[in-house]
């Protein structure tokens, strides 16, 4: 009589060991990436570029271009873009940087004056603030910064640039090889997977690939939407005062949108940067500052309820409490790295955890793997007199 084999249901993400593994893996990776940041940064940037460029190559292949030719076409276009950028944007950027350096002392002084006036205004209205000595405290900090610290910071910034330049030069190199040999590398990894776990592992790779693809593409479109919303908003706000041209407003919007990559905190920092810029450009228009604050609140709401669900939101199905906790833990362990990478890493480890639960706790798959090992052993010892 045939014995009915009832396949056991695999345990999924709810298993506590898997949850601990997911959180531990995410935090461990943040610490590790922080330690080898000089290698991790180009690798991460190359992966991001890979996911942004790959759809373009697929589109070319869709039109009948071979994979190698599509990569060649992309390289030619990217090189042309670099040449055009270095001929047009780079001189303008260097020019702006030089002007920024010349104007820095004046800008700092004006910014300090605005902040002092603002704090004095608060102190005159609230005695508690006066007792705390907000204005004097700010002045003391600025004096301390001015006494030589500024030169040290400038030196550190220059060294920082030199330190990261060789590492960043690796990015196009790595991206090229990811694009060219990605499939072969994927095949090589899968060849090492035992037959019993093969299908599930492939499913894991596919889910992970989709997750990362959705996340990076989502982030790209979110940045574009934020840039356009903030840029146009800032331009409209400053329209009567002649503060920004449209391009300058879009550039400021882009800077704030990039800050917003750091969840929750980034928007606040971006808003602060925009307020500082507006305060410098139009110090006697407090309604403009109020407008900027309202604009940032509005864009934040749009982000939360329209943009993010339409772009990144569908990619990561993680509870908001876990998200916030992981961002703070990531920030504590890995600084800016941790803040930026906490969510994508959590997404990857969640998928890994789910699949690990499905593979490792599936006793039937493990039994099949053991049976294969026994068959192999029997085959190897067939002619031996044991």
């Amino acid at each position, binding site marked *: *009589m045939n014995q009915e084999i009832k396949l056991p249901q695999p345990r999924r993400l709810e298993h506590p060991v898997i949850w601990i593994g997911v959180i531990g893996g995410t935090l461990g990776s943040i610490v590790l990436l922080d330690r080898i940041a000089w290698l991790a940064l180009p690798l991460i940037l190359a992966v991001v570029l890979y996911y942004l460029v790959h759809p373009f190559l*697929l589109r070319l292949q869709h039109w009948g271009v071979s994979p190698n030719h599509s990569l060649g076409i992309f390289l030619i276009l990217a090189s042309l873009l670099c040449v055009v950028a270095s001929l047009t944007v780079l001189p303008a950027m260097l020019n702006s940087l030089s002007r920024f350096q010349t104007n820095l002392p004046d800008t700092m002084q004006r910014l300090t004056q605005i902040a002092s006036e603002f704090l004095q205004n608060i102190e005159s209205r609230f005695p508690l603030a006066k007792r705390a000595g907000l204005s004097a405290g700010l002045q003391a900090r600025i004096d301390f910064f001015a006494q030589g610290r500024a030169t040290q910071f400038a030196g550190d910034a220059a060294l920082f640039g030199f330190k990261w330049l060789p590492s960043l030069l690796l990015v196009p190199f790595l991206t090229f090889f990811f694009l060219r040999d990605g*499939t072969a590398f994927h*095949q090589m990894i899968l060849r090492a997977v035992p*037959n019993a776990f093969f*299908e599930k592992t*492939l499913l894991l790779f596919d889910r992970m690939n989709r997750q990362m693809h959705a996340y990076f593409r989502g982030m790209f479109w979110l940045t574009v939407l934020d840039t356009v919303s903030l840029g146009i908003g800032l331009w409209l706000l400053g329209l009567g005062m002649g503060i920004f041209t449209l391009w300058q407003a879009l550039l400021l919007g882009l800077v704030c949108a990039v800050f917003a990559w750091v969840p929750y905190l980034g928007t606040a920092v971006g808003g602060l940067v925009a307020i500082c810029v507006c305060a410098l450009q139009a110090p006697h228009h407090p309604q403009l500052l109020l407008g900027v604050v309202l604009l940032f609140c509005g864009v934040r709401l749009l982000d939360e309820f329209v943009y993010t669900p339409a772009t990144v939101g569908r990619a990561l199905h993680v509870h908001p409490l876990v998200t916030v906790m992981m961002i703070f833990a990531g920030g504590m362990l890995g600084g800016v790295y941790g803040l930026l990478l906490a969510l994508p890493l959590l997404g990857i480890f969640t998928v890994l955890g789910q699949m690990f639960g499905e593979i490792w706790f599936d006793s039937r798959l493990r039994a099949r793997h053991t049976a*294969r090992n026994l*068959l192999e052993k029997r085959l190897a010892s067939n002619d031996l007199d044991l």
Partner: protein
Amino acid sequence: MKFPNPFRLPPLDPKLKVVGSTPIFQDCTRQELENLKPYLHERNYLAGEIVFDEGEEGEGVYIVVSGKFRVSRKGMLKKKNLGEILPGECFGEIALLKSIPRLATVVAEEPSVAFALFRSELERLADSRPRLGFKVAIQVARLMSGRLQRLLEGNSDSHIFS
């Protein structure tokens, strides 16, 4: 003296030839088979090794390159043997269309080699090469309709369940 002909293509990989002879890929051109190659996962099975179990979630199709596989299904009283699958044949095609539980268990009868092609990868390939995707999809549909017809006529064979 014999000069090499620069217009003659190098011979097709014999394993790809086997893939091209299977019903699903029989309409594919040489170039399409070459494009398919990076997505084919070669797996080696020992005699007696299970490829997949009945009831397991199916993710793709297996194309037999060498060796022999046996298909069986749980019966009321005993295991029902549904036949064997030989080189140039494939099993598990339904999983190319949808992730559904496997309808039978497949075991290697002798040391065998099979290529696995997964639904997700075929979908990705079809995105970049829609013509190839269409050819494969239409062949799978033809295969399924043929089997359904045979099943309705009462001539079930092993492949209906794989």
